[in-house]
C-alpha cells in the first residue's frame, strides 16, 4: 500500500479496505526500515500519528463526513509549528522547543484528518539548497544515497520519494519546494504568495516564504494544496479570495490551445546537458498535445539572483533576531555573571550554523545605514522589474516554463564550501518568489549522463494556480504513458525495504 498514490490510499480508506491506523503503521514501519539511510525525519511522532489515525478511523466508523485525504499520512517540514511536537527549523538554536500552538497549515491538516507522521529535515531556517545546512546532519537522496535531495525542503522531498510518506509539506522561499522535488523525481508546488497562511511558518524571508505541497503525482499534490490553502486572518499578507480549483484542474489535464512560454533567460548556458534534453523533450510532447510554444523575454531575470540574495538575507537578519536565549530555545554562556548581551551573542554563535550566520551578516550589511539604498533599495527595484517582465510574459503565454534546476542532484559535500555555486542552483526558481506568483516542478525524466531525475518547472500568474495543475497533469499523463508509469516507480529500491 505504501507504494500507492495518496489518492489511491484515500480511496482504499474510504472503501474501508484498510484502516488509517494500518496505513499509518505501514509508513512508520517503512520509516523505521529506510530512514537510517535517508535521514528524512528529524522527529517521528509515532504516538501522535497513530492517535490521529485512530481518531479518523473512529470518525469513519461513526459515519461522519470526512475530507478526501482523511487518514492519509503526511510528512511535515520542521519549519511549521506543531503544538507539543519538537519544532526546530533544522537549527540547534531551537533544539527541544515544543510550540504551545499550531501553525495554520497544521490546524488545517488536523481538521482534514491528515495524519502527521513527523517533522522532516531541512536546511537550517530554510537557508540552503541541499539540506546539508541542517544543524542535525544532511538528508540523503533516495535515488542515490551519496547525493543531496536538494533543499531546503530536502527531508520532505526525500520522505515522499522514499515512500516514507505519500505526501509532504515544504516551504519555498527561493525554490525550496520545486528544486528538491526536481532532484528527487516527485511533484512539488509553491502556491501563490498569500494563498497559504504563513502563520506558524518559522520565517526566513517574510515576503518570499510560502508553504506548499509535495506528492508523487500532480493530482495528489492538488488534493493537498486544496487542504492547506485559504484565507487566514492571522496572516496580514493572506489573500482573501477563494482557493483556485486545483483538484478539478489536475483531473482535467489539457494543454490544447494553451500558450506555453519558454523563458529565454532560463535555459541554455549553465544548464546540464541532460537537464536541457529532458526539458526540450517535454516541450515537444506538450506541443504534440496541442499546446502552442512561444519564447518570451524576461531580461531582468539576469538580476534576480542578486536581488534575492539581498532581500532574503536582509529580512532574515531581522526575522532571526528573536532567537536570543531569553524566552525559549538554546542558552549558552550563562555563567560567571555573564550579561544578557553576552549570553545572547554566545548563544547565537553556538546555535546558528555557518550559512545562517553568513546570511545574517550579509543582511545586516545590506540594511545598514549608508548601504540601504545601494543594496536593499536597489534589490526591491529589481523586484519591480521582474514583476513587470512576468506581467508582460503572461500577456504572451498562459503559463511559462523552464527547467526547475540547472543540474541534477549533486554529491553531498560537493558545494558546501562554495556558497556562490550553491546559490546558482536557485537561478530558475527565484524569479517566481520575487514576483509572488506560483510554480510547480514535476518529473521530466532522468538525465542520460547520470540517470538522475530532472524537473520541469511551470509558472502561472498569482492566484491562477489551477493552470499549473492543468498543464502539469497533461504533461504527466503523456510522460507516464511513454514510461509505462510515473517516474517515481523507476526509483531504485532502498536497502532497508524491498519493493
Amino acid at each position, binding site marked *: 500500500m505504501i507504494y500507492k498514490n495518496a489518492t489511491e490510499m484515500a480511496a482504499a480508506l474510504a472503501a474501508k479496505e484498510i484502516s488509517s491506523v494500518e496505513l499509518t503503521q505501514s509508513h512508520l514501519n517503512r520509516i523505521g526500515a529506510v530512514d537510517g539511510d535517508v535521514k528524512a525525519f528529524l522527529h517521528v511522532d509515532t504516538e501522535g500519528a497513530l492517535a490521529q489515525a485512530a481518531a479518523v478511523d473512529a470518525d469513519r466508523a461513526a459515519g461522519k463526513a470526512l475530507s478526501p485525504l482523511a487518514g492519509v499520512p503526511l510528512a511535515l517540514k520542521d519549519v511549521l509549528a506543531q503544538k507539543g511536537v519538537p519544532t526546530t527549523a533544522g537549527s540547534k538554536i531551537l533544539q527541544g522547543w515544543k510550540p504551545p500552538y499550531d501553525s495554520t497549515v497544521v490546524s488545517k491538516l488536523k481538521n482534514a484528518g491528515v495524519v502527521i507522521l513527523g517533522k522532516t529535515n531541512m536546511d537550517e531556517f530554510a537557508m540552503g539548497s541541499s539540506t546539508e545546512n541542517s544543524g542535525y546532519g544532511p538528508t540523503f537522496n533516495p535515488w542515490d544515497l551519496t547525493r543531496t535531495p536538494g533543499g531546503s525542503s530536502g527531508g520532505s522531498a526525500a520522505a515522499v520519494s522514499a515512500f516514507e510518506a505519500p505526501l509532504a509539506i515544504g516551504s519555498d522561499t527561493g525554490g525550496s519546494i520545486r528544486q528538491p522535488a526536481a532532484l528527487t523525481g516527485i511533484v512539488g508546488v509553491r502556491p501563490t504568495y498569500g494563498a497559504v497562511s504563513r502563520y506558524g511558518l518559522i520565517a526566513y524571508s517574510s515576503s518570499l516564504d510560502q508553504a506548499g505541497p509535495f506528492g508523487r503525482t500532480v493530482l495528489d499534490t492538488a488534493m493537498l494544496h486544496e487542504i492547506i490553502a485559504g484565507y487566514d*486572518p492571522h496572516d496580514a499578507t493572506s489573500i482573501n479570495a477563494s482557493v483556485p480549483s486545483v483538484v478539478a484542474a489536475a483531473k482535467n489535464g489539457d494543454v490544447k490551445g494553451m500558450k506555453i512560454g519558454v523563458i529565454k533567460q532560463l535555459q541554455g548556458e549553465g544548464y546540464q546537458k541532460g537537464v536541457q534534453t529532458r526539458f526540450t523533450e517535454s516541450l515537444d510532447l506538450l506541443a504534440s498535445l496541442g499546446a502552442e510554444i512561444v519564447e518570451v523575454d524576461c531580461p531582468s531575470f539576469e538580476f534576480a539572483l542578486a536581488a534575492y540574495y539581498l532581500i532574503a538575507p536582509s529580512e532574515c*537578519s531581522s526575522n532571526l533576531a528573536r532567537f536570543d536565549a531569553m524566552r525559549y530555545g538554546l542558552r549558552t554562556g550563562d555563567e560567571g555573571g555573564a550579561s544578557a548581551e553576552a549570553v545572547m551573542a554566545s548563544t547565537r554563535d553556538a546555535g546558528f550554523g555557518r550559512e545562517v550566520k553568513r546570511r545574517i551578516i550579509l543582511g545586516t550589511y545590506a540594511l545598514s545605514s549608508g548601504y540601504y539604498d545601494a543594496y536593499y533599495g536597489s534589490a526591491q527595484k529589481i523586484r519591480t522589474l521582474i514583476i513587470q517582465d512576468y506581467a508582460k510574459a503572461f500577456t504572451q503565454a498562459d503559463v511559462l516554463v523552464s527547467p526547475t534546476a540547472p543540474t541534477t542532484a549533486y554529491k553531498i559535500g560537493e558545494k558546501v564550501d562554495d556558497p556562490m555555486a550553491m546559490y546558482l542552483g536557485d537561478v530558475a526558481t527565484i524569479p517566481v518568489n520575487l514576483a509572488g506568483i506560483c510554480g510547480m516542478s514535476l518529473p521530466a525524466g532522468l538525465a542520460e549522463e547520470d540517470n538522475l531525475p530532472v524537473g520541469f518547472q511551470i509558472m502561472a500568474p498569482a492566484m491562477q494556480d489551477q493552470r499549473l495543475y492543468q498543464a502539469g497533469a497533461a504533461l504527466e499523463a503523456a510522460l507516464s504513458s511513454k514510461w509505462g508509469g510515473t517516474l517515481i516507480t523507476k526509483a531504485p529500491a532502498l536497502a532497508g525495504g524491498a519493493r
Partner: protein
Amino acid sequence: MALNYDEVVAKYDPVLGLEVHVELNTESKMFCSCATTFGAEPNTQTCPVCLALPGALPVVNAKAIESTIKIGLALNCSIAPYSRFARKNYFYPDMPKNFQISQYDEPICFDGYVDVEIETEEGPKQFRIEVERVHMEEDTGKSLHVGGATGRIHGADYSLLDYNRAGIPLVEIVTKIVPGTGKYAPEVAKAYVAELRDILRGLGVSDVKMEQGSLRCDANVSLMLKDATELGTRSETKNVNSLRSVERAIRGEMLRHAEILETGGKVKQETRHFQEDTGLTRSGRSKEQAEDYRYFPDPDLVPVKPDAAWIETLRATLPERPSIRRKRLKEQWAVPDKEFEAMVNADVLDIVEQTVLLGADPTKARTWWLGEVSRIANDKGVSITEISITPADVAELINLVASGELTDKLARQVVEGVIAGEGSPSEVVAKRGIKVVNDDGALMAAIEKVCAAQADTAEKVRGGHLPAAGALIGAVMKETAGQADAAKVRELLLKYLGQ
C-alpha cells in the same frame, strides 16, 4: 561660580524638543488579540505573537489606527494617504522580537500644532508648539531587576521579564524643535504636555495616567547663545513621569548645560534619566557606537491607506478642544477662577456639564458635585465618576430643592440614599418618607410647644433680642424631625413672637 536661572536665560536661549509616548486604551494589543489590562498577573496576557514565538505574525488592531488618526486630527495634523510600518532593529531583552514595529519615514500623521497658553509677567501668552509627526508603534515588556544594592538595573544579579505590556499600542507624538520660549521653556513644556493630556483624555483614546506610564515624556533640551545661529548640542531626558517633572527636568537640564558651557566644556549628546527624588538627571550608559537601527518596511504588514471620507467622518466626531471648552464653560457658568480651577482639578467638568444640560442651575450643580458628592466619594475612597449617582439624579435633586419639596439638609439625606442604591431621588424621598413640613398648623403647634417650654428665651426674642431665635428654631426643627424648612420656621416664629 555657576549661573543662576535668570542669568542662564539672560545669556542663552533654550531650544526644546518633546517626544510623548501614549499608550492607547484599546481592549487588545497592537498586533495580537491579548488583553491590555493594567496590573494583571505576570505573563497572563501573552501569546505567540507578543512573545515572538517562532512563526507568529502580527496583524494590526483597527481601533489603534482609528485612535491614532483621531489624535492626529486633534493635533491639527495632515493624515498620510499612504503609510507603512517599519522594523526598528536592536536587541533588548524586554523586546521579544528584538525589533520594534514602528513607523519610520512614512508616519500616519504629520505637520500639526498645539497652542498653549501660560501666565507670564506680561499676562497670559500663547505659544504654538509644532508637531512633526504622530506615529504608531508597540510597547515593550517590563523587567524586574533582582539583587544588587539599588534594585536598579546596574548592579542587579539578574532580571525577571513580564511581557504583559509587550505589544500594547503606543502612539508617539514628536514636536519639531521649539525655539523662542526663553525663560518660560519649562512652563511651556509643562503646559504642552498638560494640553496633550487633556486632548487625549477628551478623545477617550488613552487613560493618560503619567504615574502608570500610559503617558510618558522624553525632553530634548539644548542651549544656544542669544546671538548664535546654530543650535547647541542636545541631551534627551527620559523617565519624566509627571507634569511637575517635565518642568523640573527642563529647568535642571538648562542649568546643567549652562554650567558645562560656562566652564568651557562641551555638552555631550546623550540620553539622561530624570530622577524624581533629586530633580536631577543622570547619564545613561553610553553606547560604544551609535545605534544603527536598520529600519526597513515590515514585510509581515501591508500599507495603511485611510479612506479620505472615513477621515472626515472621524474629524466630525472630534470633541471640542479642551482649552476652548474650559474657556466657554467658565464664561457660561460665570465661575470665579479659583472655583473653576477646583472643578478642573476634581475632574468634574464633564459631570457638571451633563447635569446642567439636564436643566440644573450651573452653580447648584457645581456645589453638589464638588461638595456633598465629592465628600462621600472621598470617604469611600472612590473617584467621583465611579460613585453611583448620575447627573440625572443630581439634576432631579436640584429640582426638588428648587420647588421646595426638599430642603438642602433633606437633600443630603437623599444623596446618601441614592448612593446607597435606594433608587432615584424621588424614590428615596418616597421610601424614606422624607418631606418638608409645610403645614402651617403643624408648624405652629410645634412653635407654641417650644416657646412654652423655653419661655425665657421666647421672652428675649419678644423683647427684640433676635439672635436668641436660633435656639428656638433649632428646637422646632428637632420637633419636626428635620423635615421643616428652616426659613419658614423662622418666619412663623418671629411672627408669633411679634417680631
